[in-house]
């Protein structure tokens, strides 16, 4: 990483380091998820003060050869980020927790970076729940955990529009007369026509697929989100 090159990034998580410094996990466009140390960032006179905020695009330069880079410059367009924290922000915290836990370090994911940027814009006006589901499905695919929407897990038969299926986590769809989804609805999920699919089923599928990727790690923000009155 050249110390003079500006890179775009989003803050995923930060924690205090010593009295005045901060260590942050950021999702950068050119290098994927990296950890940076912002020395003195908690002092009001620091040039980093007030900049490290999630949900808005930051521009940074870093230096250092070790895994933990040192933040050298930061910039941000403040005109874009004056939205107040709202209940939607809890969902954004949930997505940040997902990315913190699922994104591998130092692996470039430019497509997912763009998806995340579009998602932050979309949730401001689109249906929140469907935006979340759509992001989860796309993210799973981009991270290599995509769901197979084409064939029956038992016999590799192609999924048929008029048959009913059940989602078996870890594997995919299995034909079953009591199944909750029709083949047509499975194709609607594949094609992201999510408003055509029962929301409960959609939520269960993405939840189970994500649980599998988390490999036993818990997602705390989902619990907290659930305790809020909708």
């Amino acid at each position, binding site marked *: 990483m050249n110390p003079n090159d500006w890179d775009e990034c989003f803050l995923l*998580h930060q*924690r205090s380091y*010593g*009295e005045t410094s901060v260590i942050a996990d950021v999702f950068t466009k050119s290098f994927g998820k990296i950890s940076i140390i912002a020395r003195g960032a908690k002092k009001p006179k620091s040039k980093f*003060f*007030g*900049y490290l*905020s*999630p*949900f808005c695009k930051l521009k940074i330069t870093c230096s250092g050869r070790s895994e933990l880079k040192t933040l050298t410059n930061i910039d*941000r367009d*403040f005109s874009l*980020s*004056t939205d*107040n*924290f*709202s*209940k939607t*922000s*809890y969902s954004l*915290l*949930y997505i*940040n*927790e997902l990315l*913190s836990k699922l994104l591998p370090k130092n692996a470039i994911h430019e497509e997912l970076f763009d998806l995340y940027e579009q998602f932050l814009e979309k949730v401001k006006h689109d249906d929140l729940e469907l935006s979340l589901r759509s992001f989860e499905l796309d993210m799973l695919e981009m991270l290599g955990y995509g769901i197979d929407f084409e064939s029956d897990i038992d016999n590799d038969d192609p999924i048929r529009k008029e048959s009913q299926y059940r989602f078996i986590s870890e594997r995919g769809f299995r034909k079953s007369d009591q199944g909750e989804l029709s083949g047509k609805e499975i194709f609607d999920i594949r094609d992201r026509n999510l408003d055509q699919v029962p929301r409960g089923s959609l939520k269960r599928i993405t939840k189970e697929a994500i649980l599998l990727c988390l490999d036993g790690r818990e*997602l*705390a*923000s989902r*619990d*907290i989100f659930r*305790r*809020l*009155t909708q």
Partner: protein
Amino acid sequence: MQTDLLNDLINSLTILPGVGKKSAQRMALYLLDKNKDGASLLSKTLQDAVETIGRCKRCRMLTSNEYCKVCSDTSRDNQSICVIENPSDMLAIESTGGFRGKYFVLLGRLSPIDGVGPEDLGIDQLLNLISKEDVKEIILATSSTVEGDATAIFIKDHIKDIKVSRISYGIPIGGELEYVDGNTIARAIQGRTEINVD
């Protein structure tokens, strides 16, 4: 093996915030070499404090009694509660003398990724307190961070029929705009107040 008490003392002192190995060495040598009486008093006071100071039963502030100084002060206004993140926030607000109500200390703020949830912040205890006492106003003085905001909204969401306000953030008194960071200016504009001329 010979015990190295001097070294143990130096290492113990480095647990203090802002104290590195060098300063710890200086402190240890000063205590042992220059001020042994002071050192004895310090060790006794520290021991007593560790043994007797706990949490106030009502507001979770540090205290050596069942209830802290503020909670047991009958002249304070029972009807407003200021919710803060840390004991040091209470000391900061108290030093201004501008607030006559009582407090509730969360001892942190919501941070899902770090595993800090509502139960760690005693939010149930706060809600219980509100329902038992004749509280008229809750002032949320959590920090101006995403986690501080998340905490404030979470609490607000669980309180019904009582006025809930958030302290405002903005331009420091005597501060000129051009030296204030963009984020603070944006917040200050959002939280602007009407000027009343009588």
